[in-house]
């Protein structure tokens, strides 16, 4: 089943869609397979759930690396987040 959630980014209303069985959804623009799709609500885009499972590393889960994880990885490489670039 495709899950639809309404989200607000800035002042715009968007619809976030994804499969609840961890499969790709098909549609969108450019048309193709998406892990997750966010579209302007006014576009009323519809997606079709596929049977193609999302690879583990692509699955948006709670275990997915967080922004802090990436910051940490960057800091290992010497990136200082307190400086202006």
């Amino acid at each position, binding site marked *: 089943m495709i899950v639809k959630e309404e*989200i607000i*980014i*800035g002042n*715009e209303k*968007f619809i976030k869609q994804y499969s609840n069985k961890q499969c790709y959804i098909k549609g*969108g*623009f*450019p048309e*193709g*397979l*998406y*892990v*997750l*799709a*966010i*579209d*302007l609500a006014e*576009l009323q*885009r519809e997606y079709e759930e596929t049977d193609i499972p999302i*690879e583990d*590393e*692509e699955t*948006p889960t709670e275990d997915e*690396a*967080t*922004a802090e*994880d*990436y910051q940490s*990885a*960057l800091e*290992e*490489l*010497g*990136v*200082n*987040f307190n*400086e*202006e*670039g």
Partner: protein
Amino acid sequence: MANNKVVLGSVTIIDISDTTAVAEDVAQGKEFYGADGNKVVGTASGGITPTGTLAISQNGTYDVTNYASANVNVSGEDNKVIEVLSLSSIKDLEAGSRGMTISTSDTYKYITDKTIGIVTKYASSLMLIKPNSSMTYLWAPIMNQIEFVKFNRYNPSSSINYVILSCNQLSYLYFTSDLILNDTQVIPLKTSGNYWSDFLKGNIYVPDNLVSSYKTATNWSAFAGLIKPLSEWEYYGIY
């Protein structure tokens, strides 16, 4: 009446009927006979004689009409193309998968030209940083599509922060420099997380004719405020 051919018996004595020159072909003031046998005065103005050498040290279009030669010597120091070298190397990166870190000493064989650090960590991600500096990096998770990614131009020695990226799809974005997408079609963005937008510090410049398409494209539309026409990029036409 003018004559253009003289024939005596079966012998052609003079024949100028096949003359192809016209007044514009002949130097001004000089006389000749045209194909019809009439005398014609040339009207062509004199040309110039190219002299000297034009020294060219930057890319661009130059008028070399007045020069006999051009000496082109454009330094590539600031514009060297840096790209992933070979598919075999890229396969190695993919094999790393989640949690694997490639040491910076290993990375140089993947990225050439400058001391760019590259590390795979968390899925099939690709990360470029500017060594010995901060806040200049692009992080581009691309989900098994690494072989299609090519960083056309990245200048780690410059204070100009930008990355020109060409690929067939991206998973999501995380960058602090201007991102230049110069493909002729909208690149599919396969997913988008809300929190990533907190780390988008630059703008996303796309071909002018694709701005509206990107702003309504799946997942890209969440970043509509950052999407700008390439012609507005401050270095447009320079890089």
